[in-house]
């Protein structure tokens, strides 16, 4: 089983983010960069599949120079090698163009499985895995909460549906699946894993290596801003019975926490 895991470097959602004066970007100095949360779960799932079925796990990222760190982290956790896609011309691409860059890079590797996190914590497009699947003619599944390899050409995927429901589906391989956070318990890089990183290879890919060049971005950011915080306090008055009746109505109709 040859598995590719897509990992994105994103700003730590728990760190305090400051919007730059241009209202288009974040103040870089204040950002703590981390691996995207659900991508960590995808990596863990890939490593567990490799431990069970053998094969190879390749971590792949696209980003600025600092993004090498997510590959280092993945290699330390046990990925066999890395692919680092980086070019200044990729920085502002929309997700479709990015999909083309990835598809072009990954095509020659003939992966059985491409795994990615459900969505990135910064952009939240949730599309990259699907786009790559379409471009490379792979089957695809999203919101994975469990995987099971049936044979060399089939994988079962447990998908999370709405309202606490799950669905097991069979996908033919090769497939691209996206993984939901919480599917497993991601491991921590062992000391040996960290020390072995320097022995592992990372292929560098830039614009000149990508066959089907992505066109310019179709999306431009107009403004980045923090949502206004508002507090709405509603006082309910009356007898206890009236208040409880009002509350039930509120819960049902406005807040929708009761059916």
């Amino acid at each position, binding site marked *: 089983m040859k598995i590719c895991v897509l990992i994105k470097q994103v700003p730590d959602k728990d760190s*305090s983010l400051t919007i730059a004066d241009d209202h288009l970007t974040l103040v870089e100095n204040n950002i703590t960069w981390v691996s995207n949360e659900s991508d960590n779960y995808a990596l863990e799932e890939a490593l567990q599949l490799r431990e069970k079925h053998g094969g190879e796990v390749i971590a792949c990222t696209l980003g600025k120079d600092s993004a090498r760190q997510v590959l280092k982290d993945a290699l330390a956790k046990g990925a066999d090698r890395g692919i680092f896609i980086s070019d200044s011309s990729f920085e502002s691409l929309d997700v479709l163009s990015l999909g083309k860059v990835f598809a072009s890079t990954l095509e020659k590797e003939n992966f059985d499985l491409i795994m990615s996190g459900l969505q990135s914590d910064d952009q939240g497009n949730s599309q990259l895995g699907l786009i790559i699947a379409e471009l490379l003619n792979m089957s695809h599944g999203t919101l994975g909460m469990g995987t099971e390899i049936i044979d060399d050409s089939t994988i079962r995927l447990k998908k999370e549906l709405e309202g606490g429901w799950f669905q097991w589906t069979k996908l033919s391989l090769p497939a691209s699946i996206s993984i939901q956070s919480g599917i497993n*318990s991601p491991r*921590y890089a*062992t*000391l040996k*894993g960290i*020390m*072995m990183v320097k022995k592992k290879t990372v292929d560098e890919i830039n614009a000149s290596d990508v066959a089907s060049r992505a066109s310019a971005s179709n999306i431009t950011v107009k403004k980045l801003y923090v949502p206004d915080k508002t507090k709405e306090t509603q006082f309910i008055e009356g007898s206890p019975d009236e208040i409880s009746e009002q509350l039930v109505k509120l819960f049902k109709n406005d807040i929708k926490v009761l059916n």
Partner: protein
Amino acid sequence: MTEHPFTIIEKIVLLSGICISLGSFCFEVLKRLRIVLKGTGSLPLDRIGERLWRVFREVFLQEKVIRGRLLPGLMHGFVFWGFLVFGLVTLDHFAIGFEFPLMSHETHKLYSYVVIPFSILVSIGILHLAYRRFITKPKALGKLSPTSGLVALFIVLLMVTYLLGEMELQPLVWKINWWLHALLILAFLILVPRSKHLHLVLGPFNIFFKPFHQPDHTPVKIDMEASEEQLDEMLSNLTRMTQNQALDIFSCVECGRCMDVCPAYRGGGILSPKDHFILDLRQPLLETGDVDVLSQINVEAGWECTTCQACSEVCPVGNQVEKSDEIRRLQVLVEGNVPQEYQKLFTNLQNTGNTEGAISSSLVDRLPKFTPDMEYVFWLGCFARYELDPNFTKSVENFAKILDTAGVSYGILENEHCSGDPANRLGDKLTYAMLREHNMEQLKNSSKVVSMCPHCVVNLHKEYAKYGDISYKVEHHSQLIGRLIDEGKIGVKIGDNGKVTYHDPCNLSRMLNVVDAPRTAIESVTDEFFELPESGKDTLCCGAGGGLWWKKETVGKTHLVRAEQVVESEANTVVTGCNFCYGMMNQGLDPLIPDDRSNIHVKDISDIVAENLA
């Protein structure tokens, strides 16, 4: 002595019995000693005078045995002192069998005036202990041990046969009684090394060799340039016990005092220090004949430990019980099996140098920055710096006020990183090394450091020193405040704080041995001070130690046990000397205080002193 002649057959039987019994005893003891000597490190032989003094107090005077459990401790004391008195009697007993008595008839008679009262005390003692073990059955003693019953029976019979032997008996009855006594001793020798009663032999040595400082985990020195073979060797050594730890396992008397004082166990967690840190490892040691057994420690139990060292403090046979460091570092460095909240904590430490992943601290802007002309580096620690409990900021300001009043110059380090305490205690020795190296660089031009966080003090001082020389002195703010009061550099007055008690932080009392300084400070501003049931070096952990502050879910209520005690104490104010204890008290007390009780004020030592400056 011709009074009781022994035939040659009897002498041969006796000699054979002694050889078998002693042979078995030596075989079993040597088998265990061989395993102990396979351990890493060596048994310490420094400060011999202090070690002998400790043996005198803890073995001969039974200090720890009696302190923790007065009545059973005293009963154990009777049995122990009786054994000492009986030593000569026993030797003489066998000598009589060979018709070469050690004592003359008169000396024997004279000595019996000492031995007879002791034989009665031993009987009372062992019967009480047996009653406790088999009738009262305290939980800490564990499941019923038939061997203990047998040993109790042996001891009672030894006493009875001794007393009978001192009476005027028919020669035949005397002889039967003599043989019974001799056989009991020989059987006892066979039983001792195979049971917890081996503590009779190993306990004094274990107390002698016990490290002076707790905790005493072997430092993990990581060389990032090491070859793969060197790395593999270093990692495989992580599962090996030290000689001291292996000796502990065979010395354990299974009394369960460590369970009685363990905050995790008392809070309803799964951790039982006696079982998980000691007894679970005994069989693997004997079965493998080697010390490569640390991976056998229950992992979940290991994560529950608050590393408070109460178990090691209370142990009457000198065990350093706690082994969470050993199992955690295996999980982190070798297995990569780390709870998610701790992975986040480690990532924060690696990325930002602080536990919270914070980029800035508003408190830092309000305090003077350290310059070389200043006397003290005021080490803040992440708790204060990033306001893990926002109320504690006031305590920091109060300490600054005290220093200002006393005219002490101080400043904070802008590039202070976490001392590494959580990484160290949770087993991430690589992240710890990173933080330690950064901080040692920051502190290289400093001579005096003061901190309000005992966790930071322990690490900056004792833990860093395990990895290399440190050039600075570190003290806890309570020590400095106590001294400023003593030297009259700050004036204080008795204030109205109601009934005031003090919660000793484990890092401060047990690891740094600072017990008096906080009391000096507190008692100088209140006249209604009282001690909690467990205080000083016998304090009960607040529940935050060992990285548990960052653990989201715990089995049981480790974090509430101490707070409950404070509520029951009827205190109006509880003072503490650790920011984590301060935070835990604030969190724990609120939901526990009954509606009809007024609030209990949680204060740092700096608060109560600063509020009562004259």
